[in-house]
């Protein structure tokens, strides 16, 4: 079942696209989107590779892990958005203040 | 393949054509109102045809009922959301396209 590898490669592509956006963009909302895309990529690799031995074996453990991961991701996103709003409320823009050699 | 399978396949293809037309309309129509028109009309019928095809193949009445429920919910939500989008567009003062 090589189709599983197709999704696994797509997952790696998403991870790298997200990483690129996380580094390149200054706006915090874009960085939050980027982290979410990276997370989706990791989850995709996790579930897709569980199917690489064929249809017969469906491993439920990665599925459960991804559900856990999705819930962690939405929690982190909510906290990040609230922080961004508070930061924008104080500084007037949603970018990270002061560059520290990054 | 049995006769119902062929009938279902025809319904799927027909539904697919409606989806395609709706999407083409969404991309090609000139303003938000006509696009909404293309989207909701075509998608409702398209989804209806596909649901009809699936109902033909359904194993039990329970499954068929659930499929119908899905279609009704999509119809309802689609109508409401289209209304909301159109109203917001009108409030924002987006002109209706006229030739």
């Amino acid at each position, binding site marked *: 079942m090589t189709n599983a590898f197709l999704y696994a490669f797509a997952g790696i592509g998403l991870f790298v696209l997200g990483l690129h956006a996380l580094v390149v963009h200054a706006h915090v909302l874009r960085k939050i989107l980027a982290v979410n895309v990276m997370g989706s990529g*990791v989850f995709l*690799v996790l579930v897709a590779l569980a199917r690489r031995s064929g249809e017969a074996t469906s491993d439920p453990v990665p599925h459960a892990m991804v559900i856990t991961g999705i819930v962690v991701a939405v929690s*982190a996103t909510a*906290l*990040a958005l609230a*922080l961004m709003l*508070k930061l924008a409320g104080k*500084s007037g823009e949603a970018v990270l*203040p002061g560059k*520290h050699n990054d | 393949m049995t006769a119902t399978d062929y009938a279902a396949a025809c319904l799927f293809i027909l539904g697919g054509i409606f989806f395609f037309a709706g999407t083409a309309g969404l991309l090609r129509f000139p303003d938000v109102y006509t696009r909404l028109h293309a989207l909701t009309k075509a998608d409702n019928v398209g989804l209806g045809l596909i649901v009809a095809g699936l109902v033909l193949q359904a194993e039990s009445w329970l499954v068929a009922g659930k499929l119908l429920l899905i279609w009704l919910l999509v119809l309802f939500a689609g109508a409401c959301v289209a209304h909301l989008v159109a109203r917001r567009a009108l409030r924002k003062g987006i002109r209706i396209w006229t030739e």
Partner: protein
Amino acid sequence: MLIGLLNIDWGVITIMLPLAGGIACVLWPAMSKPAGLISVTGVVLAIAGLGWRIMENGTYRHAVGGWGAPLGIDLFADGLSLVMLIMTALVGLGISFYAKRFFSPCDAVRFWPIWLLLLAALNALFLSADIFNLYVALEMTGLAAVALTALTGRIDALGGAMRYLLATLLGSLAYLLGVVLLYHDAGSVDIATLAQRIEPNAAVWTALGLMSAGLALKTALFPLSFWLPPAHASAPAPVSALLSALVIKASFYILLRLWLELFGAFAEGVSMLLGLLGAAAILWGSLQALRQTRIKLLVAYSTVAQIGYLFLIYPLALVSNGMAASMAAYLAFSHALAKSAMFLAAGNLMQFGGHDRIADLDRAVQRLPLTVAAFALAGVSIMGLPPSSGFVGKWLLLDAAMSQGRWDLAVVMIIGGLLAAGYIFKVLGYAFTQAEVPHDARAVPAEMEWAALLLAIGAILLGFMAPQIFALIHPDLAVNASEAGTVWTA
């Protein structure tokens, strides 16, 4: 009676007690402070119980749900986990008593539940034997730490917390991708099972790279340390102490555990790289600390430098002399005590003068003698002067470097010590001199001064405890360590 106490499953209690305490704080906010103090004290007792059990029965293992690895999740504790837990409990206790007086009632209601959940997350992390469970514990730790960083709501704290959150999420995701590769390579997420099955192949090497990079980012190893100074310097003082003393040790511990159990056997080249980055961290962090004009930023950059020492263990001790676990645990413990004392002392100085500008300390030594003493004693350990624990830890590293002919690393360590002396005496010097503009001074509660001082004294006393700590982790190597512990008297 005593045997009954021994049978209690103390390891589970160390996690469930602070969780229950945190939930109690959410349900009854008015009871936050007493619930918090009771939970933290309870955790200290539970860890004492766990330590006793480990000394009696050997390593601790608990199959959650009764399934056992690899299907279920195992809790596991050996000497290394135990020392990290003791570090968390003692430093956490000190910081809790400081926080009791530090926060206003409305901040206290927000601080205690998050701190208790953070404590539970740290205990869960040090007790976990499952790499996916470690990911969940790591995310818990990260979210709690970010929430605590932003507690003041000041703009610098918000910026620091935002940067910290993005860095910590990126680090966790890289770690998780490593977990994914290991699971699909070896079919398990249990560390012991993985250790039997893992062979050095492309997937394992990639997992090694991803996990090391992600955890190094979360531990703030130079040059991935950009997020640390703004976050640690802008948080409220007890939170800075928690972050620098405990939170960065969590990701460091996972990395060390993975190297000890899984990667250490074949990844010598990468350990050299980690060591070089550690050396760079010592020099860069110390130089930056020397340049700072505010105490909290100075202490934060000092953390960047001290993390460097922790990573020198990889080339010096992981492969060659098998002392890596005990040296790392001892150094981490020593740094946790000294650094928490320093941040708490800095908090006292800020409360006292209303600012943390080093140049305007204005004879703090006369008005806050206990706080300045705490800073000085913690500084002795950071500089690595005898008889402090910092001396013993760094002497062991230096000894390992010289016996292996790594003169470059030895020189870096000595320069790092001199630079540390420079930045600590810079603060102490201003504490003795009069500022040009006299300041109003506000009273600092005695408990806050004593909390800092006791932690600093702990950092010194740990120097005398080296043989015991080493014996906990490597019973067979204890002789070696007792020589190390007594070397300064010779």
